[in-house]
């Protein structure tokens, strides 16, 4: 009886020990598996982050290169031609130095060319650093831009705001201005609206830029799809600039006659 009882207890203890062994084995294995998964997910996040940073950098370089190209083209096509004309005028002046009437004509022509070139230089400068933006800030700068675009594109552009001035960091302000300009230009180019309404608001620490138009709308999902396949720089520039200043962008179509672009940016608490 005692032997049988002892055998039973021995078997019981042995089974319990093996059960514990199994549990411990599972615990130790789970720690390894869990840690392996954590490392894999961390690597995935780091890789995505690196990929994203690279994409951002590539897009920034591409935008900067395109802007340089634009300036170079302006200088070559506009200023270069004027200088060639001025050079020709100087040659003509040398040849006709004894003909006062011709000299006067050439000087008048040259003056006009110099005035034109000064206008072009001013235009290039204001394109790079808009004077209104520099002197009066984003609100006035965007308002000014709306007026200019309204005239040049022949579109009715309304502008509203709840602030006269918002104190931005200067670099952020310039980026935001260019981003808004790119959004408006892209909307005019692709959505072909008749009317546009722009609204800039500062509520607490959030700046909200809203563009409402009656053209062909687009959704955020479609924008993201296009960003992958599109070769155009405009969309890339919009997305890159918004990421650079940590702004969120939302494209919606609330109704068939209304499309919205909403840009939100959080300002630091002291601004």
């Amino acid at each position, binding site marked *: 009886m005692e032997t049988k009882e002892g055998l039973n207890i*021995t078997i019981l*203890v042995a089974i319990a020990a093996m059960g*514990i062994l199994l549990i411990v084995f599972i615990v130790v294995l789970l*720690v390894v598996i869990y*840690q392996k998964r954590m*490392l894999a997910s961390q690597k995935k996040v780091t890789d995505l982050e690196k990929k994203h940073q690279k994409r951002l950098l590539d897009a920034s370089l591409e935008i900067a290169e395109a802007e340089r190209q634009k300036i170079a083209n302006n200088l070559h096509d506009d200023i270069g031609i004027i200088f060639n004309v001025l050079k020709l005028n100087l040659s003509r002046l040398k040849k006709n130095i004894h003909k006062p009437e011709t000299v006067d004509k050439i000087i008048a022509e040259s003056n006009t060319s110099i005035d034109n070139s000064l206008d072009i230089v001013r235009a290039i400068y204001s394109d790079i650093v808009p004077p209104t933006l520099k002197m009066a800030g984003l609100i006035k700068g965007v308002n000014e831009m709306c007026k200019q675009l309204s005239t040049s594109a022949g579109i009715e552009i309304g502008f509203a705001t709840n602030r006269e001035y918002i104190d931005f960091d200067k670099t952020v302000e310039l980026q935001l201005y260019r981003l808004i300009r790119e959004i408006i230009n892209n909307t005019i180019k692709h959505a072909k609206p008749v009317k546009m309404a722009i609204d800039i608001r500062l509520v607490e620490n959030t700046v909200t830029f809203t563009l409402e138009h009656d053209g062909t709308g687009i959704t955020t999902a479609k924008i993201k799809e296009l960003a992958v396949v599109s070769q155009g720089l405009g969309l890339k520039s919009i997305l890159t600039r918004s990421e650079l200043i940590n702004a969120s962008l939302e494209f919606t179509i609330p109704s068939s006659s209304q499309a919205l672009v909403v840009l939100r940016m959080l300002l630091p608490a002291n601004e």
Partner: protein
Amino acid sequence: MYFYKTATQPSFFMTIFKHLIQIFISLSTFCSLFTLIISIFNFKYFKGYYVPLFALFVVSFVADVINSILVALVISTAPVYHFYTLFEFELLVLFYWTYFENTNSRKVFMITGLIFPIIAFIDYRINGLFNLDILSSSTEALILILFSLYYFYLNIINPSNEKITNHSTYWVNAAILFYFSGNFLLFLFGNYLMKNYVTYYAILWNSIHSFFNVIYTVLVSIGIWKLRKA
């Protein structure tokens, strides 16, 4: 005919089991020596928290030698275990205390290290020197299981950038967890089984303890070997 054969001759699996136990008993005899040799060869790689472990390997080896002499002289080895458990616990707590130097849990290691001699003394008063130290050994097992689980818990909530299996301490903690959880029941019911079913207790001790002792030695040795790559 078949019944006669099975009743009198051990089955194939029983024979294998017996051989396995015999192998584990033989291996287990040299475990402490093996761990000590591995530690000596890798001593130059030992960091601060490995010094208590090295001391433990020395103590284990010395205890095994004394045990072998006592067994040869047919004297009870129980008093050796009373002292060995105390040294083993204190050195392992010192290992954890040194390893977790920047955590808030250090006080817990210190307090358990200070309280344990009292438990060992109570055990001595209850069971006497010539019975197994079931109170202190099972308390030791329980506390060390918790400490090793705490190590794994910390590694789960604060995972390092390196694979955990490359960490030497992972293997040492796995060894501690395997050894003490596997032997916990043997420690807890030691005196009861020894008094009532001494033959079966001997079988259990020789099989379970030897098996977990071999696992412990293998895992600790891997841990020490990993120090070379650290």
